[in-house]
């Protein structure tokens, strides 16, 4: 960020409205606890709600008004992405937002309206392409060093089993040749960073709530420094990730070293989501280790999002590469 830039991180009125409306819809329809139900993926509520999200304008926030969008920018998309991250919404909702930018003409219109669906896929070190929540999707947004849009039926998918069993995964070989790192790849990376920051926040809140209620040795465990300090560190990590992703979003496209801003945001957000998920499980003690508690859902989902077209090492390389 150029030091000449003055940024207000407080949400604008529009941003607050977006956060409130999406947040309210998600709290009603996609509480994190839904993921303990172990429904088959086909019943995942996000798919059934695709049209609702479209009507809310989620997929076209940053399109100009004459294309049916709201004329907002990346900052507003980021607000939505954080809310989606907080409830561990399907990664394909973010894929849809990305796909709208990558598509054009009729495809774009069908994505905006929710008539067609997109999902993320990312290559593994085994050379295969891994697709998340892509059953029935029309488009695949492939995240590697770059980002590119593909027809879903151009691959020969086979089923796989995910660590996060609340997400469906499929694989196809070989993965397409990696693309170049361009501004769109940075943009999508920032959306994922915001979702990861939202997970880090929500994991903190979950653990804080538990620590304030659960008693051991005659006191709430949150009164013990070992727990209190772990929670304080969780909050600090979540705040760092969130602030940096917001600063990077404002700086995005304004020139300067913003590629590093994006890399820092992703590095911090991946770290915060993973570390906070781990710490959250530990704060929950025995409960945290069970499938009956939400804590592990954050862990599994954080690993998935953190690995989407990126790795800690990849961001480190970008952070050191000359601007």
């Amino acid at each position, binding site marked *: 960020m150029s030091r000449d830039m003055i940024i207000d991180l407080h949400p604008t009125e529009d941003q607050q409205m977006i956060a409130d409306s999406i947040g309210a819809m998600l709290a009603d329809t996609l509480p994190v606890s839904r993921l303990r139900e172990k429904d088959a993926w086909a019943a995942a509520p996000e798919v059934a709600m695709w049209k609702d999200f479209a009507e809310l304008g989620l997929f076209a926030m940053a399109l100009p008004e004459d294309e049916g969008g709201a004329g907002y920018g990346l900052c507003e998309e980021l607000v939505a992405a954080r809310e989606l991250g907080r409830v561990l919404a399907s990664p394909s909702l973010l894929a849809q937002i990305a796909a709208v930018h990558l598509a054009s003409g009729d495809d774009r219109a069908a994505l905006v309206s929710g008539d067609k669906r997109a999902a993320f896929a990312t290559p*593994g070190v085994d050379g295969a392409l*891994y697709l998340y929540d892509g059953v029935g999707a029309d488009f695949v947004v492939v995240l590697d060093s770059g980002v590119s849009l593909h027809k879903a039926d151009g691959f020969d998918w086979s089923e796989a089993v995910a660590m996060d069993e609340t997400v469906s995964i499929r*694989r196809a070989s070989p993965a397409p040749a990696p693309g170049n790192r361009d501004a769109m790849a940075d943009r999508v990376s920032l959306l994922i960073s915001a979702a990861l920051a939202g997970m880090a926040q929500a994991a903190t809140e979950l653990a804080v709530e538990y620590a304030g209620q659960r008693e051991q*040795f005659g006191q709430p465990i949150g009164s013990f420094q070992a727990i209190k300090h772990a929670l304080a560190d969780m909050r600090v990590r979540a705040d760092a990730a969130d602030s940096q992703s917001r600063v990077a979003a404002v700086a995005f496209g304004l020139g300067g070293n913003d590629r590093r801003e994006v890399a820092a945001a992703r590095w911090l957000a991946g770290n915060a989501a993973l570390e906070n998920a781990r710490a959250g499980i530990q704060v929950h003690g025995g409960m945290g*280790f*069970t499938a009956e*508690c939400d804590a592990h859902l954050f862990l599994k989902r954080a*690993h998935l999002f953190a690995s989407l077209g990126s790795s800690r*090492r990849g961001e*480190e390389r970008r952070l050191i590469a000359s601007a």
Partner: protein
Amino acid sequence: MRLIEDPKLDRFRAECRDWLQDNVPTAKRPPDGLALREYDLAWQRTQYEGGWAGVSWPKEYGGRGLSVLEQLIWHEEYARAGAPPSASMFVALSHAGPTLIVQGSDEQKQRYLPKILKGEENWCQGFSEPGAGSDLASLKTRGVVDGDHLVVTGTKIWTSYAEGANRQELLVRTDPEQPRHRGLTWIVCDMDLPGIDIRPITAMSGVTHFAQVFYDEVRIPLANVVGEINKGWAIAMTTLGFERGTGTIAHQIELANGVERLIEVAGETTDPETGRSLLDDDAVAARLAGLRAEVMALRSLTVASVSRGMREEVPGAEGNIPALYFGELTRRVNGAALEILGPAALARDGEHNWPLHYLESFKWAIGGGTSEIRRNVIGERVLGLPRGPRAI
């Protein structure tokens, strides 16, 4: 510090190795349930018949009466041979059994120990409660003396392999008037008694080895009390220190093998971003180097623990040091695998099933004493720091 050069030990090791090579079961181990229990018991019987059960247990109860060194050698060779984890036999072999050896009456030892070694009975634990995870002194499950029975009502949680277990080491409150750690009793509960109900708990890994156990006026003979009534805390504390590291040595070796496998895989895998092997990335190599050093440190801490064990009758609180180290390290090793190998390692149907190892690894920093409790114990009982203002 010295190398122990003893031809007897070398011969013992060779014997272990030979026997294990010929006898380790080749049939696939069932993942859970009663089939798993049967498998574990059968393998225990095989070990007993081969003369390898209870290497360091007294001879009179079917053990071999050898030292902690032979015990260590046995564990090492056991892990090297890829023998099955003790799993559903763990509490019997590494917890309840050793406690009875030190604290049980002659009659109790005769009654229980041989059946453990012979693979006739397995045990589970009944210490933690939903309201008392780390805080054992606040246990609420009640035991009321009624004639020559103790009538137990309440619930226990985090009981591993409860389903199909024959016996349980159970800690109950027999005098509610006495504060906290006083008024507790350690008793052997037969798991087929009327009034016991077992509800499995699914771990985040999907494995269902845990259960919550409910007791509705379960009548346990007073003869099953180990030590005295209301003096169970001291018995439980004996057990708590028993881990010298040798009990988990198989897990430690598994962890070390995990690091080696990860280094190997990283060397064979091409990083799509750089076109070089993952291990050619110095940062990945440095991370793996650090983990390798820490796994070596873990083993050395265990060697130190065994060295103390050769001289002490009752293990001290230092046993928490390798236990804490292991609990934190195993999670980091398995987490590193997922982070380094990325999306391909997040699938559960991959060659190594890293997710299962990773998710299960969290339990070592939680179960049997969280890392926080272990740090308290190291601070207070090893370093002699004053207790906090909590009312223990």
